């Protein structure tokens, strides 16, 4: 999640390279949800950069940090259960581990589920780098009566083991100083499995030893194990020498031998052997004081009878919070800006650029523009990130995904997508950013398009302030009904039109975890900073352009070519075209400016909109403003997430649909006798 555009997709590396001259490289690996990212955030501060392999969405994060006087780099690999070829996160973790060949690897495991986590530790040890194991979340484990004997575990694994509580920073200094001590040394001996498997591995390892140029400098045993898991990736790395052919035939004969015994493919035999060994090790290192909870309250979040009402309540809570609290904060911020900041900016601009059209244009950008960015950023985006972080860290997002999966499937989405879509009703910008948590590109694209079509609180305010205020609540409801219908149709259409299909869901469900406020705030602030750095410059530039057009009077001239669309198609007064355009800066401006500019253009009696717009005009105006073009900030984050091409397509789509539907109702309603 880097603010630097240089890490954009266009610069994706085919093979990740170690950052040069920044001290030892320490990689972080671990299963999902073991607190690995918390540990990464606790170890590092500013200056996080990301990289990913082309065609994949799982990122590797890099950050430089210092302990005492030693500078080193930390690489955070995607959370994965294995280092296999599927799913994507496992493949990325493995490739990154091999490509980077880190000086040490910290494998983070969950103290409550040591047995399940150890399989990955074995796989990482087999890759050859020195390993340190961080037994994280020991506080949670202790609450459940689980104690991990780190000495015993260290003895059986043959690598150092440290207890940590990443959320409180406990054990991190010790962890890092041990990692730095072992860095660059030799890796630990690889774990040994049961005799039958070892007998099958041995001839393969012997054949592998005869290969002089083993890929990534893997040990013969490591190469043998990877070949035995029937990995196309590895076969592709071997040349067509006789030694490679001998290795392949050794693999085939060992695989057949294993299959005759168990009836399983070797990949499953290997997984099974690792899990058995992990269970044996865990049994001797983990003691359990037997505090079993009689009733698991958290199960209520996924049971259909309690889970669905709870989900609806949580979604209503997010919506209400962004809508009510966000609006209150936005109003408060706006009056603070007008009273305490804006005068200073005006003073500075007037001092620098005088009092003419230039200074007024600059004010559009540096006063109104910065205000637009901040008045979305602080009240909506920061608050939303805090809400989202709480849901994520407590494990509730997975419960949401479980319950909503089937419904969202109709639109080609994963159950998780319901959270950004509901949040979009508050503000589209954080919703577009939250779409990132979806597992693949297709889903992110569908979800972003749908998010941009959800009326945010500003667009809702325009509908209520025009149609609701001047005509009545029923026609206002009509606007929302039309928008919702279009929205659902778009979702179903995208699901059918876009190539590919949603993956079958396989997702671990986690028990409740107490979120740490500090962690959530730090994460929210990091994400918010990104919005601030990416979106604000674009909003300022957009505002300057709009301001320039307005102050130079060009905007009024633009209204002439717009006339066929605004007057002809939509049947609206010309001034409405301009305010719709300016509304892209901030959607609520579409109403505020309509009143102001109507007064300028038509006269003071126009402050009552009904005196110069018919009810049909207002209805069409609100409809077009709601559907066509998200605001500048949304466009900014869309192009950050998806690139210019896709953003243009999404924006063009909303314009065509907005104008089409607006035109349809402008002509249809009078035919029905409504004026």
């Amino acid at each position, binding site marked *: 999640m880097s603010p630097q555009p240089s890490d954009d997709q266009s610069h994706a590396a085919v093979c990740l390279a170690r950052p040069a001259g920044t001290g030892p490289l320490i990689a972080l690996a671990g299963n999902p949800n073991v607190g690995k990212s918390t540990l990464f955030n606790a170890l590092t501060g500013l200056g996080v950069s990301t990289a990913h392999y082309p065609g994949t969405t799982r990122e590797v994060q890099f950050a430089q940090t210092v302990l005492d006087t030693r500078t080193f780099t930390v690489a955070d690999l995607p959370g994965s259960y294995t280092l*296999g070829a599927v799913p994507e996160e496992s493949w990325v973790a493995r490739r990154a581990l091999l490509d980077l060949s880190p000086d040490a690897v910290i494998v983070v495991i969950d103290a409550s589920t040591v047995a399940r986590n150890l399989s990955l530790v074995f796989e990482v040890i087999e890759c050859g780098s020195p390993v340190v194991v961080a037994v994280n979340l020991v506080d949670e484990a202790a609450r459940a009566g689980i104690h991990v004997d780190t000495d015993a575990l260290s003895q059986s694994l043959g690598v150092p083991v440290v207890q940590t509580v990443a959320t409180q920073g406990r054990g991190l200094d010790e962890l890092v100083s041990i990692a730095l001590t072992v860095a660059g040394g030799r890796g630990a001996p690889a774990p040994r499995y049961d005799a039958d498997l070892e007998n099958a591995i041995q001839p393969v390892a012997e054949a592998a030893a005869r290969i002089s140029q083993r890929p990534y400098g893997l040990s013969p045993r490591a190469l043998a194990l990877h070949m035995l898991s*029937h990995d196309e990736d590895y076969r592709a790395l071997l040349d067509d020498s006789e030694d490679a052919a001998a290795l392949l035939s050794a693999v085939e004969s060992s695989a057949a031998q294993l299959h005759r015994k168990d009836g399983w493919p070797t*990949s*499953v035999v290997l*997984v099974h052997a690792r899990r058995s060994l992990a269970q044996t090790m865990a049994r001797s290192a983990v003691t359990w004081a037997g505090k079993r909870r009689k009733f698991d309250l958290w199960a209520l979040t996924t*049971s*259909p009878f309690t*889970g669905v009402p709870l989900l609806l309540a949580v979604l209503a809570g997010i919506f209400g919070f962004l809508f009510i609290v966000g609006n209150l904060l936005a109003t408060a911020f706006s009056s603070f800006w007008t009273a305490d900041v804006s005068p200073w900016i005006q003073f500075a601009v007037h001092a620098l650029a005088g009092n003419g059209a230039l200074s007024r244009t600059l004010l559009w950008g540096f006063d109104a523009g910065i205000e637009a960015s901040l008045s979305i950023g602080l009240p909506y985006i920061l608050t939303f990130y805090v809400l989202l972080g709480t849901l994520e860290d407590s494990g509730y997002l997975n419960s949401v995904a*479980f319950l909503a999966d089937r*419904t969202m499937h109709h639109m080609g989405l994963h159950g998780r997508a319901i959270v950004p879509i509901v949040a979009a009703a508050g503000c589209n910008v954080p919703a577009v950013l939250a779409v990132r948590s979806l597992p693949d590109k297709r889903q992110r694209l569908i979800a972003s398009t749908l998010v941009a079509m959800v009326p945010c609180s500003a667009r809702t305010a325009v509908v209520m302030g025009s149609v609701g205020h001047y005509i009545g609540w029923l026609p206002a409801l009509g606007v929302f009904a039309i928008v919702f219908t279009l929205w659902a149709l778009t979702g179903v259409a995208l699901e059918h039109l876009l190539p590919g299909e949603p993956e079958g869901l396989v997702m671990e469900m986690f028990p409740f975890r107490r979120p740490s406020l500090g962690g959530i705030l730090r994460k929210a602030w990091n994400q918010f900073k990104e919005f601030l750095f990416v979106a604000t410059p674009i909003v300022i530039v957009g505002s300057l352009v709009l301001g320039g057009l307005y102050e130079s009077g060009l905007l009024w001239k633009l209204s002439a070519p717009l006339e066929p669309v605004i007057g002809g198609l939509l049947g609206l007064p010309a001034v409405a075209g301009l305010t719709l355009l300016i509304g892209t800066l901030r959607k609520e401006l579409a109403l505020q400016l309509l009143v102001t500019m109507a007064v300028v253009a038509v006269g003071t009696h126009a402050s009552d909109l009904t005196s110069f717009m018919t009810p049909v005009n207002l209805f069409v105006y609100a409809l077009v403003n709601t559907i066509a073009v998200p605001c500048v900030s949304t466009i900014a984050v869309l192009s950050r997430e998806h690139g210019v091409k896709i953003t243009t397509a999404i924006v063009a789509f909303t314009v065509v649909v907005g104008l089409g539907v607006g035109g349809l109702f402008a002509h249809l309603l009078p035919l029905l006798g409504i004026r």
Partner: protein
Amino acid sequence: MASATLEEYLEAIYKLAERGPVRPTQLAEALGVSGPTVTATLKRMKAQGLITRPQNGVELTTEGHAGAIDIIRRHRLAERFLVDTLGLPWEDVHEEACVLEHALSMRVQAALERFLDNPTSCPHGHPIPSMDGTVAAPTGDALSLHVAGDELEIVRVEEEDEGLLSYLASLGMYPGTAVKVCDTAPFQGPLMIQVGDAKYALGRAVCEKVAVIPRTHQRRRRGQ
């Protein structure tokens, strides 16, 4: 009898029919061909008396059924041979067997059966029909048919999906694993499955590919 294409169709119809009434769209999806192609081929099959088309669905006639059993027998024997004798990996042999199956005459089938020591099931755990066309009932049913509270044991994972097989294994779900259904999400949503101390949400499409049997306490569980 039928051409290789028609044999593929018979096999696909038979497998789909095990799960419920068959629609042409499902066939198109299963075989990776277009809708019009399926319609044309089904017309040919109907003319040859292999299928009937009740209410636009597809049903095998007695002759079609016999043809299907025959091709499935050859497919599963071929898989057995590829795995047991040639040592190819279990998860790769489905496609290879699809090519081999069409070339096995009655004589070769009988010889293969003797050579393989009269196997009763394919490497994925599905029964091999006997020469006279009888099929042992496959053990187990789809995980997706189960409800909250059911205690089960995985007996096999469908052969078509190699990645899924390895991935589920890495999460601890392989044949012999004891699982329990904790919850089912509304509107035919995913199932929540308990495996050891972990819980996983599995989509319906995934659950349809996992065959399970009820767990009894006498059964000795492999891998536990």
